[in-house]
């Protein structure tokens, strides 16, 4: 009765990530500041963010609501309204400076130089236009081709992202797709112009776990094919472990830890990252009590002085004097390993992690 002949499940092996790509940065963010003037004062959403990303690599930006992870990525796409956002610093994508770029040039850049997929594919696709129409529109915005050529391209892309029967599906409206299919269609739309940079803003958060797994596979697979740089924004450290090469942990608008995934998640050096790891229940072993970070993230209207994390940090007493409250630590290598950096005054974070944090991880 079933067309499945074998009695073995279709499986995917979780492979250790192979670090690919050149070392030359395709995306380079330097001292990025994004602020929004409001009636209550200046919202400092991103403060002095710097990172770079070569082609072929995936960077996960991790943080909680209000950490600045989405705001900074919107800035990379040039999506902030110049009337409401104050942006300074530099964002270079493939050598092009995005900060201060004119609207006409931004239109040319968006979708072709970099593309973005969003959290909720249901609300991110226009409900009144067909899937094909929306993909064709993206393609024709950057290619002067006929509708029928664009349609062929749309079908090709839908096929590429694993939508069955793309010739028929191209004429469907978003509501006729399931959640996972909609996200596939979003990905097809983002990649239709072969952008070298893909920004995925919580692309699997609204999806069920089995669908999430499919989408993560697809993104990884497409990245291998297209050789693009991927910025993956998420709050889920499990997803990061699966998909990313590098990780950037953000807190209150600043990066607090940056480096290769195995290192940052394996031996994190910042108390905030420790707190995150201690907040996630494990899937195996005897359940351990969770050690959540006390308090709540600060308001971006009044980010604490010094280290923004200091009001919630249980290791503040280990730093002599009042440096934590007065001096914002730099994001620099804190151990002999120069491939990673963290923003914390603690003297021997490595040892604290090994002796105090690791034993009580869930």
């Amino acid at each position, binding site marked *: 009765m079933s067309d499945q002949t074998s009695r073995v*499940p279709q499986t995917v092996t979780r492979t250790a990530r192979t670090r690919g790509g050149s070392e030359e940065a395709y995306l380079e963010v330097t001292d990025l500041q994004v602020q929004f003037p409001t009636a209550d004062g200046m919202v400092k959403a991103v403060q002095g963010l710097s990172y770079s990303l070569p082609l072929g690599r995936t960077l996960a930006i991790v943080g909680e609501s209000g950490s600045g992870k989405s705001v900074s990525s919107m800035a990379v796409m040039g999506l902030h309204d110049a009337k409401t956002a104050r942006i300074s610093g530099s964002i270079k994508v493939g050598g092009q400076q995005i900060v201060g770029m004119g609207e006409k040039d931004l239109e040319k850049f968006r979708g072709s130089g970099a593309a973005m997929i969003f959290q909720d594919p249901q609300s991110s696709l226009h409900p009144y236009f067909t899937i094909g129409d929306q993909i064709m529109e993206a393609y024709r915005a950057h290619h002067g081709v006929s509708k029928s050529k664009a349609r062929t391209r749309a079908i090709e892309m839908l096929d590429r992202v694993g939508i069955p029967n793309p010739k028929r599906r191209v004429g469907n409206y978003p509501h006729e797709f399931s*959640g996972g299919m909609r996200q596939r269609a979003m990905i097809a739309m983002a990649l239709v112009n072969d952008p070298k940079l893909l920004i995925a803003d919580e692309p699997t958060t609204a999806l069920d776990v089995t669908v999430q797994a499919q989408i993560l596979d697809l993104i990884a697979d497409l990245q291998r094919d297209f050789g693009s740089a991927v910025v993956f924004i998420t709050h889920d450290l499990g997803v990061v472990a699966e998909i990313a090469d590098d990780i950037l942990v953000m807190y209150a608008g600043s990066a607090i830890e940056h480096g290769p995934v195995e290192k940052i*998640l394996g031996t994190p050096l910042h108390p905030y990252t420790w707190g995150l790891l201690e*907040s996630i229940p494990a899937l*195996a072993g005897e359940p351990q009590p969770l050690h959540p970070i*006390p308090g709540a993230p600060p308001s971006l209207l009044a980010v604490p002085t010094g280290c923004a994390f200091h009001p919630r940090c249980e290791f503040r007493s280990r730093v002599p004097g009042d440096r934590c409250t007065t001096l914002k630590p730099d994001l620099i290598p804190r151990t002999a390993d120069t491939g990673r950096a963290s923003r914390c005054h603690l003297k021997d974070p490595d040892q604290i992690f090994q002796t105090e944090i690791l034993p009580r991880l869930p």
Partner: protein
Amino acid sequence: MTTTANARGERGAIPRVEGAPLLQLENLAMYFKTSGDGVLARGTKWVQAVDGVDLTVNAGETIGLVGESGCGKSTTARLITRLLEPTRGSIKYQGHDIAHMSERRLRPYRREIQLIFQDPYSSLNPRHTVGTIVGTALRTHGMVDKNRELPRVQELLEMVGLNPEHYNRYPHEFSGGQRQRIGIARALATQPKIIVADEPVSALDVSIQAQVMNLLENLRKELGIAFVFIAHDLGVVRHFCDRVAVMYLGRVVEEGPRDALYQKPQHPYTQALLSAVPDIAVVRGVPPKNRIRLVGDVPSPVDPPSGCRFRTRCWKAEDICAEVVPPLDEKAPAQRVACHFAEPPTESIVAEVPS
């Protein structure tokens, strides 16, 4: 546990029928009508949101309900709390069937069965102070005398880790995590014996989520309240629950003690679900595991597959799966599986953390 409530001096507790568990769902079903209106309507269709759920919750026990969107877990929560009246089946609370009970007769039961919602933003009336919100719960069920109301409200706020002096603040003055605490205080006000928590931490950030989970866990230990804990996050459910039931398309496909279910899941769907969870342990040197990829989408609950509802996506499916609905049978101690070909996986699905 059933005596604890009386010892606390609660008024008019529901008597327990001898030998009955705290909560028992039998063949519970909920069908929603979809299309068609008016006399000339044709082709009325029914969404089989929940279709034949059997579940038992003992006093003080936590049972997790997991499954993906559309599996019926939230509908089940609304049935247990009788926000919905079931199409079929029974909901026995301490042996009394409340499935079709009138609103008036339900009142004492509503006090003992409480609900915590997912969205701490929309489940609190923005125009009421926290004191009013929690106080209303006290007053509705006549929990305390009028002059004792405020002290009791403050006691409850303190219990959930809020500043008791903040009773006259409005919900918008609190953060998401604090609002969820208010929701918990409101549920605790009536000294319930069972709390149905529908995705109580899903809308919260990771660090806040852990705070609320710890709070729920402490309350459970202190007050001996039973929980039906609904979540899509399998790690969260594992952390909190004694037993776990996995739902697929309106039915329970597997149910058992936590460790058995996570380590030796026997239903193919449970195996696929567990293997799909991205595991952070990979970066800590745990060897990567194979993960099962389900093909296609969940079928429509309007027209579900015959026999086993998972068969259309199952790699084990044979003719019998389309013909016979697999019963939820005990395949291992206390572990019930609804599958004709139930068997534990050959290798561990969930990566073991080296300790």
